């Protein structure tokens, strides 16, 4: 029994039954398949993270965000500036307690270098209803090349707990058709 010492003293020499061997081989091959699937997707799939990231001081990041807002704001929505950066440019989104700053307006079918960083705590970038989720750290600037392929209004939710107002932390991205 499993709660007593093995009945065969030399248990490591016992033959292994065919059923077990077949299952071990199948499970091993399945593991290899899943492993190479991730690598294959880096070559052929459309959804991969870039591996591009920089260390950044929170105040430096805030300066970049301010510069972008000063250059490309197209309108104001409540407290939020709505920024429409040129396609292909660096777009800086800032996480802070408790907002995603500023609002962005992107063009459908164009690519952008989206930067994500926080100036205080860790936050979770969660773009809804698409359900794209990325972690945002203070001190790290993560760059993702993003190409919106559907137009409309998208909500950004915070999905990393960041204090008692966590559930009020939201933002918005508009995707408009090319003009």
């Amino acid at each position: 029994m499993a709660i007593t010492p093995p009945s065969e003293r030399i248990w490591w020499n016992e033959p292994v039954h065919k059923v077990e061997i077949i299952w071990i081989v199948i499970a091993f091959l399945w593991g290899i398949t899943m492993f190479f699937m991730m690598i294959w997707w880096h070559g052929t799939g459309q959804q991969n993270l870039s591996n591009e990231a920089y260390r950044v001081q929170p105040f430096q990041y805030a300066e970049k965000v301010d510069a972008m807002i000063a250059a490309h704001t197209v309108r104001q929505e409540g407290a939020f500036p709505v920024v429409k950066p040129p396609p292909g440019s660096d777009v800086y989104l800032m996480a802070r307690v408790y907002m995603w700053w500023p609002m962005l307006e992107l063009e459908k079918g164009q690519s952008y270098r989206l930067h994500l960083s926080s100036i205080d705590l860790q936050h979770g970038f969660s773009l809804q209803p698409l359900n794209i989720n990325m972690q945002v750290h203070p001190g790290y600037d993560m760059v993702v090349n993003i190409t919106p392929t559907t137009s409309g209004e998208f909500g950004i939710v915070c999905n990393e707990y960041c204090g008692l107002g966590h559930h009020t932390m939201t933002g918005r991205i508009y995707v408009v058709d090319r003009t």
Partner: protein
Amino acid sequence: MNTKSGFRTCPTTGLKVHSAAENLIKANAVVAVVFLLIGGLFGLSVALTRWPAVHILPAEWFYLALTAHGLDVLLVWIIFFEMAILYFASAVLLNSRLAAPRWAWAQFVLMLSGALITNVAVLQGNSSVMFTSYVPLQASPWFYLGLILFAVGALIGCAVFFGTLVVAKDEKTYQGSVPLVTFGAITAAIIAVFTLASGAIILIPTYLWSLGLISNIDPLMYKLVWWGMGHSSQQINVSAHVAVWYAIGAMVLGAKPISEKVSRTAFLLYILFLQLASAHHLLVEPGVSSSWKIFNTSYAMYLAVLGSMIHGLTVPGSIEAAQRAKGFNKGMFEWLRKAPWGNPAFAGMFLSLVMFGFLGGISGVVMGTEQINLIMHNTLYVPGHFHATVVAGTTLAFMAITYLVIPLIFRRHVMFPTIARIQPYVFGLGVAGISLFMMGAGTLGVPRRHWDITFADALTSFEFSNAAFLMLALNGIFACMAALGGAMYILVTVSSVFFGRRIGDTEKVQLGPATGTQAAAAVASYGSAGTLKIPGTVTLVGVFFVSFVLYYFVNWKYLAELWPLK
């Protein structure tokens, strides 16, 4: 029969039981159950707050309760129970005395003080930082200090366990190799040492930081090392509850491992590869490369998953073989139909096995795929997954073995047998619902650790679909059911331990349909010889494999529908 040496001989199993080990098993198990009660109540309040129509707690209380829930059940209940398992699998199963009982009591006192200190810190309201306490979010210094004491206590417990193995070997209290269950416990203890060391490496500087002695803790480094504790501690649970599955199969049905070599190799794969899982929490993080993520998240080509898939065949396979040896040979599934489903130890164990594999295992591997993590990270899918592994898997397995620990170690009859009989089903179904509906809500994008997904107080609004709200309501209903199952467990165990009819020194207990020596004789003849027939298990494993493959590729398809990212 208490002898002068402090041993008694168990009339049911024939094992020599050291009274110091027995007392420590009792103390650790009782404290574990108390914290299960506290943590379970916090959990219920969290689920009822998520249910939009009920929304019972205000925001500050919700985050406090969620922090306390994670600590009390994920850490305190489980590690205390694992200490009891370590002492059982070493001293009791090996007929040995417990090494250094005083140190073992130091383990108990340190862990209990640590748990109390951290709980008080959380209840004071200034440490609602969640179980993970990601920096730069800061809790009171007492929060970290309590955790450090708890970890040091657990480390001492592991040392006593290893010491007991040495004593048993030295004093030749058993013949040949250690039993498979003890081997599983050794796996758990080795992983525990790695885990607790990671905890110390990150929590001690964080404690100093909270006192103002260190100015900065890098948030990414914190996450990497913290999850060396946070995720690896779940691997202690896996090893421990797989050992418990084997133990219950043996004690209730006299099941013998199909192959000692295969089952032990599977445990060895855990020791070698499970600790890489910190990466599961860093898949959508800046600053770590894709190569690092792919190698680590897959436990080096899924070799630890291979270990679990092996146990997924060998645990039910050994039960099928034992049942067939007793004559339940008709068709493919007579062995399963005529299994002792009215025995809560067996029922809990089998439900734990099935739900851990189908719900927890598959969802974990899929979510841990580098790119697929993008559509699941930090959504409710994550707690959906780990409630299937830690609650349906570990907690249910621990509940199941309690029904054997009460007669064997506490030497009391189990009270309220009818309630005990249905308890695993009520709890199991409740947890299955919690897990499935949280995963469903997560697939729809609902964030975890979030008080209000209607965003009533937010600056800009976003509306989740009605389906998401329905999922949260169903989650609340099934949480009530799981809470009922938990209450039944606590009622049965606490009353039995304190008021159950005593079992005499020479009285034998019937643990299952066939136990003890006659069962061992009945199943001793099968093994790896060519006569082994387990067609029912092969079918079940086949169903599992097909579900796994389908669900895996369905999620790649979901991912492919996202906006292009590179």
